[in-house]
């Protein structure tokens, strides 16, 4: 029997994997992918509780999240492309222009 606890554990695992990816990886593409993982961990939670509570709002919200993630990916990839044209790299350690 699959209980909400199992969903939440899966979601937490995914979330932690995403966070660690964001923290430790140098490649911006990978970081982006980790962010997607985080978002999807949230989505699993939303959907799981939506089914559990018999409320559709959670599923609608999950769809919104997917749409926003897509938009974010589009913008983020644009930025990465522009950066790469300037710096010939996508290493996140080179992206320190905001440094004082």
């Amino acid at each position, binding site marked *: 029997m699959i209980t909400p606890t199992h969903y939440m554990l899966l979601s937490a695992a995914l979330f932690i994997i995403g966070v660690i990816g964001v*923290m430790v990886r140098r490649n911006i593409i990978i970081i982006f992918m980790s962010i997607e993982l985080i978002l999807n961990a949230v989505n699993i939670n939303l959907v799981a509780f939506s089914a559990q509570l018999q409320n559709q709002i959670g599923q609608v919200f999950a769809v919104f999240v997917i749409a926003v993630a897509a938009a974010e990916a589009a913008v983020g990839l644009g930025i990465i492309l522009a950066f790469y044209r300037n710096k010939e790299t996508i290493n*996140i*350690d080179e*992206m*320190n222009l905001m*440094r004082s």
Partner: protein
Amino acid sequence: MRYIWLIPLLPGVGAAVNGLVGIRSFSRRTAGIVACSTMALALALALLAFWQLLGLPAESRAYDVVVAQWIPKIPLATRTGFAAFEVPWGFRLDPLSAMMLLVVTGIGTLIHVYSTAYMADEPRGGVARFFCYLNLFCFFMLMLVLGNNFLVMFVGWEGVGLCSYLLIGYWYEKKSASDAGKKAFITNRVGDWGFVLGVFLIYFTFGTLNFREVQNAAATMTVESAHFGVLSWICLLLFVGATGKSAQIPLYVWLPDAMEGPTPVSALIHAATMVTAGVYMLGRNAVLFSHAPMVMEIVAIVGVLTALMAASIGLVQYDIKRVLAYSTVSQLGYMFTAMGVGAFSAGAFHLMTHAFFKALLFLGSGSVIHAMGGEQDMRRMGNLKKYMPVTFVTMMIGTLAIAGIFPFAGFFSKDEILFRSFLSNKAIWAIAVVTAMMTAFYMFRLMAMTFFGAYRGPAWETAGHGVAIGVHDRAKDATLAAAHGAKHPVDIHAHGHAHEPDHEVAHGPAEPHGPDDASHHTGHGHGHWHGPHESPTPMTFPLQALALGAIVAGFVGVPAALGGSNALEKFLEPSFTAEHAASGAAREIRPNDVIAGRQLEAGRQTGEVRALEHAGGAAEESGEHVSRGVELGLMGFSLLVAIAGIGLAWKFYVTSPEISEQLGEQWAGAHRLLSNKYYVDELYNATVVNGTFGAGEGLWVVDRTVVDGAVNGTSKLTVISSWFSGLTDRTVVDGLVNMVGSVVQEGSLLFRRLQTGLVQNYAMLMLFGIFAFVSIYLLVR
């Protein structure tokens, strides 16, 4: 008489013309003509005014003319509240001022004429300057005698002081002359201080400065015989003014020094007119003084002491002008004595006669000095009657007049004074008689040394053949000359200063000049000095005119005892009394009553009122009529005394000159004391002059230390405080500002480390932050 204001104005115009135009462009002659003609016109007007005054009845012989408003109405505090202080340019002609008017214009005119010749050797501009001052002096003097209130009088009073200063210092290149001018001016200033205070007090007391109003108001007040009230104070202050102007103790010291001026100035100012201003002022305020018997006594005592002291100094002086100067002081003392014993008309009478014979004597001495080429030391004269007969005769008349020999002018006026002082106070009379003897003595000593004996002056060269007649003449009188010449060596050495100021600069050295001296400017018109000679007509004419005056001037005041009517006293009487109408209920005080009044007051004090009122009446009676025998006796006595003085002088200085020499040695101490004028000048120098200098220096020290110290201290304080202010500015204020800056800088150095620019760092921080917040939320909840 409406035009009496023209009388002072004319010499004023003359002074303006000579002063503004003359100094630059007038010749000596033109300057003299301008000055003399203005004075002559003034004299003519004065005679006319006098004639018209005589034509009026005795009670209404007074005329006031207001020319213009001077000080408009100002409310000013007086003793009884506010009164309108208002002073017009008012002139008043009454018997007293008419007499003074005639004296000033008459003698002034003669002296102007005399000056044209006496000053002929001066530089051109100098003559115009001299006449400008002389005219200006007459202007102010006439203002003084004609003014109808104290303030107009004060203008004249100060003006004559100024002119006196200018004229004494006329030869201002000479230090002694300019010093003498200053001395005169400053000494007069002291007196003027008293006069001004007196005028202030008069206004404060009476609320007016008009002479007549003041006298009328004073007549209604009580006689201050027992206490020293406001009237006494007024009179005392006015008398202080008079001592300055009229050279009385203690302010007489300026007059002998004033002889540094040209001789006509000495004659005009320091004998005939200006110095009589004080006497005139006392006479003008006769009613005031009659109400202050204590001050009257002071006046009499000061007057008689001055007379005695000045006469005694005059006994031993060798400078011909100085003898006359001390004689002037002495005669002024007589006038004050007369005023002091209440004989106002006698004082005024003596003023007039003295003006004649003293001007005559001064002008005569000027003539002698002129003849001797500037020599003033009588030891170097002698036997001049041979060379200048006119001067000799006229001066002899003047000398007889001043000695009081019948029937010359001085006899009547002096005896009037002596008689009145005899009635008032025997001691004063005795001193006055001794003084009279001294007067006769020193005047004949002067005559003897100057005109008699042997010629002792320097030799001279005649223009023709170069033979020194003077030397010859001298050799002829060798015996007498030796006696005379050896007579004074002690004096010469003991009193070296006696012949310091003897030379009048413009006349050059007294020694005759040899041909090699031709380039040296002698100032004497005819180059070389040709020995004593008679003066030119413009100089001898005034001498003769004044000699006539010295003979006849006394006859206007022949006393009743000699069968005269004493016309002058009757004429002057209204000037010395208050007006009846105005005096109202109060009894009229006539100066003649003063003696009686004094005894009356004294009687009241002892309680024997009735008996002494009778005695007072008797005293008055005797003063007027009864004591004719006494009066005649006194006259005879003083005549004898004068003749005795003359005889002594004759014996000492003509017949047996060695006696005076012996006496001088026997009484060496007294002689030195007199020759040094009682050391009064030294005393004043030691006290007043050095005191002033010392005070000035003390004040300077105070100025330097205290005042400058305060100023410098303030500045130092400012410097120190501003240094502190700068210090706090630099440390505290700047420190705060810099501290803010450095704190911000240090802080930013610390916090900039956070801004790594690395996205992952930010993410990490966010993560930790969220973790922390959630942890807190979970824990604290």
